[in-house]
């Protein structure tokens, strides 16, 4: 509790004692503030002796009925014990004393610390208190009893009874009352036909029914009410609580004992079923989460999946806070942080020390969120924040361990993701390095050839000014011009390649008429195309496609350039378009010798030339084509034609919302008025 005050300084958590001696201490926790004191005392002793110590909480059916502030104390005790280095254990059972001793023996505990009970004096008369039980049965284990004097139990906690809980409880009692009433009515009708013992059975049946469907309070209430009503109405003397016959008295007492036992036992079964269900839910939640995290492939989707999953389990807002590049924490996924400077401070504290903190944890609990560190290899890699939708519903004591388990799973998944990414990056780095080397060697070769020609021709012109005839001069000038153009294309392809490779390309997509794009490509290649007749076969109503026209034009230029390079002059080139399965398919077919088989895929690789060294270009053209088509979401492939030659085909997805080729456009209609009033030409 005292941590609550000092959010400003945010002190580090206490050191865990590293060395463990032979002493093993056990502190028993309960839903009382005394537990916190017990923990500190035990911690001091354990630290002094270098002993390993346990903090044990026995969860009995009564734990379920604890008011929220009491369960909050239990949670706080857990947190505190964890921080102080205890091994915190929670067991479920009915007899606290027995559970404690079993645990102590199993773990070779040498000393048990329990709190001195303030209340329950009457209970000591029956069966003795917990302390008595422990002392009688402890054998070799020491028992230390610590008094709770001055602790002022319960004073600090303001009771905030939830209205809904009361009304639910009242409803239970009303139902129990109703059940007994119905039973009495039935018994009244059957009174003359049934024996005295059968009536008892009828009431016992009611108690079974009531306690199997309602909680413990109404169950016991129904047991007592049944006995009272039965005694009043059906035991002579009738209409009074007087019992005429001692035999009847025995029957009534047996009935009281049996019905109380039934209600108690049924409540226990229900409790166990609930515990089992909860544990099953938690296991399912963990399993489900691990399934989800395993199925994601990117860092972002991993975080999103975790946020969604944890938010669903706890019904709250989840935020994942990770360190940014500059080391400062930033929200990486999920809801944004509330506008409270303390929230960020707690997040930093949790990130720094790797301890859970925040609302309901006993550490820095003045904030609205619960902060759990995301640990990978015991090092915090981030912080998970959970803010419950209904803050008054503090986390149940066992929900926090579940949250921590989920956070641990997420931390591991993030670590795995990070390692995968690093491995991939290293691979890419090697790949890029290899690429750079290949590029440098082939580019330097391919740049040198035209440069040699240009330099040679220009120097011939300079030196042979008088000796050369006009025709030769023109020839040399042409050579220089052609080689310069070739250099330009090469440089353009290199630039395009590096843009595509770096992933920095921004597609400038617009709706385009393919006919125009093809026309532009042909226009660019006009001089070289002289030797090759080009046939275009495109339906007149071919739809518009959403593309980056300059890039698709580059694809067509490279394909046409390729066709011209590898086919003899005079052969025709055919460009055709068709529609197939929601895709536009464009084909560039030549009538050359075709491809040597086996190279259909490889020719789209970088620097691949089907006949190395024999032709011009670095073999970049087709790989650029492939990159461009792929960023457009299409495919590119090549096949030999049955007659002779090769067909390069590529697809472009047909998207929704293409402007229609139909002329009757609403925009235009709107403008008829504008058109008429401005027809000054």
């Amino acid at each position: 509790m005292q941590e609550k005050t000092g959010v400003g300084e945010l002190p580090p958590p206490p050191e865990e004692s590293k060395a463990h001696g032979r002493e093993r201490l056990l502190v028993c926790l309960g839903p009382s503030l005394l537990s916190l004191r017990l923990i500190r005392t035990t911690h001091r002793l354990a630290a002094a002796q270098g002993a390993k110590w346990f903090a044990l909480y026995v969860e009995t059916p009564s734990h379920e009925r604890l008011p929220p502030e009491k369960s909050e104390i239990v949670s706080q005790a857990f947190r505190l014990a964890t921080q102080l280095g205890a091994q915190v254990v929670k067991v479920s059972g009915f007899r606290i004393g027995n559970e404690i001793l079993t645990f102590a023996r199993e773990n070779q505990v040498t000393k048990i610390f329990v709190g001195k009970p303030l209340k329950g004096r009457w209970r000591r008369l029956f069966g003795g208190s917990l302390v008595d039980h422990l002392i009688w049965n402890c054998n070799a284990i020491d028992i230390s009893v610590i008094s709770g004097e001055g602790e002022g139990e319960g004073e600090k906690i303001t009771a905030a009874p939830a209205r809904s809980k009361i009304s639910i409880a009242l409803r239970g009692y009303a139902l129990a009352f109703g059940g007994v009433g119905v039973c009495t009515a039935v018994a009244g009708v059957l009174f003359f036909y049934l024996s005295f013992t059968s009536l008892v059975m009828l009431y016992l049946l009611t108690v079974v029914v009531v306690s199997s469907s309602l909680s413990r309070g109404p169950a016991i209430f129904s047991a007592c009410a049944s006995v009272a009503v039965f005694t009043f109405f059906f035991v002579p003397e009738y209409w009074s609580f007087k019992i005429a016959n001692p035999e009847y008295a025995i029957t009534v007492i047996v009935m009281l004992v049996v019905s109380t036992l039934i209600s108690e036992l049924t409540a226990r079964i229900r409790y166990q079923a609930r515990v089992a269900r909860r544990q099953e839910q938690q296991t399912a939640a963990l399993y489900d989460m691990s399934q989800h995290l395993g199925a994601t492939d990117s860092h972002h989707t991993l975080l999103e999946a975790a946020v969604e999953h944890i938010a669903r389990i706890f019904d709250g807002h989840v935020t994942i806070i990770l360190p940014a590049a500059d080391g400062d924490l930033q929200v990486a996924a999920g809801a944004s942080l509330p506008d409270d400077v303390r929230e960020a401070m707690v997040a930093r504290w949790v990130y720094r020390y790797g301890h859970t903190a925040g609302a309901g944890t006993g550490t820095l609990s003045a904030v609205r969120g619960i902060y759990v560190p995301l640990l990978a290899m015991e090092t915090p890699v981030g912080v998970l924040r959970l803010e419950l939708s209904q803050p008054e519903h503090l986390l149940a004591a066992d929900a926090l361990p579940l949250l921590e388990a989920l956070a641990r799973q997420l931390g591991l998944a993030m670590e795995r993701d990070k390692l995968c990414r690093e491995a991939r990056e290293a691979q890419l780095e090697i790949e890029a390095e290899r690429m750079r080397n290949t590029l440098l060697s082939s580019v330097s070769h391919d740049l040198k050839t035209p440069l040699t020609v240009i330099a040679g021709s220009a120097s011939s012109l300079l030196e042979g000014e008088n000796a050369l005839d006009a025709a030769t001069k023109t020839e040399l000038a042409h050579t220089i011009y052609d080689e310069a153009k070739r250099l330009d294309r090469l440089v353009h392809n290199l630039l395009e390649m590096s843009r595509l490779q770096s992933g920095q390309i921004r597609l400038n997509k617009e709706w385009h008429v393919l006919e125009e794009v093809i026309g532009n490509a042909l226009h660019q290649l006009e001089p070289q195309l002289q030797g090759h007749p080009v046939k275009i076969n495109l339906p007149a109503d071919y739809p518009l496609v959403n593309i980056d026209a300059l890039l698709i034009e580059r694809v067509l230029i490279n394909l046409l350039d390729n066709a011209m390079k590898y086919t003899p002059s005079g052969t025709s080139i055919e460009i055709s378009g068709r529609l197939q399965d929601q895709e536009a398919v464009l084909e560039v077919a030549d009538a050359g010798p075709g491809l040597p088989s086996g190279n259909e895929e490889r020719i789209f690789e970088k620097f691949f030339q089907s006949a190395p060294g024999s032709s011009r270009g670095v073999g970049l053209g087709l790989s650029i084509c492939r990159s461009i088509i792929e960023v457009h979401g299409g495919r590119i492939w090549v096949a030999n034609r049955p007659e002779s030659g090769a067909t390069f085909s590529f697809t472009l997805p047909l998207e929704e919302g293409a402007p229609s080729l139909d002329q009757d456009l609403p925009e235009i209609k709107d403008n008829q008025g504008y058109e008429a009033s401005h027809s000054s030409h």
Partner: protein
Amino acid sequence: MKLRILLIEDDPQIRRFLRASLPTQGYELLEAESGREGLGLVAAQIPDLILLDLGLPDMEGIEVIHRVREWSNVPVVVLSARDQEREKVATLDAGADDYLTKPFGVGELMARIRVGLRRSSQAREGSKETVFSMGNIAVDLEKRQVFRGSEEIHLTPIEYKLLATLIKYQGKVVTHRQLLKEVWGPSHIDQNPYLRIFILNLRRKLEDNPTRPTYLLTDPGVGYRLRDQEISGL
């Protein structure tokens, strides 16, 4: 009197190459190495045409255009590199008349200069021609009739207006934005796809081979231009 061309370009090799070629074509060349110097020469020498490089060290090309256009209608031809596509279109929309992409040949340069100079002289004298003809296409601008050979072609009002606009700027590139603004009005400047559809239809009506047009040329990523009569094959 020789027509004077101002070259604003920071690269000495390009200045050298133009210094060698422009005077042989009958122009007088003024040179400026920076935007600031260029603007000074525009005011002091009143050139007939400006060649403006887009990669100046001291000023953005678009700023030079804005400053010049504040007081002068002198034709401006922009010289741009391949990676300056956006800037090029922006300068054209801001008032530059045409552009050339580096590397360019002297033939292309001369064609641009001729068109630019002709347009500025037309603007001074006012065009009196009422019949426009180009190849086998004839347009009667007064009667609003279009002929292909001897056959009259029917154009929709929008198609006619599109053609008339291109005729008005013949030989010069007209950006998508300018065309949409002149034909459809200022609220339609983002409707490039519709413009493309109308150009396609116009080509189908006027061109022998609409895929390889000879009159209505595309400047990819920039706009359209109507072929200049004096240039062929560019």
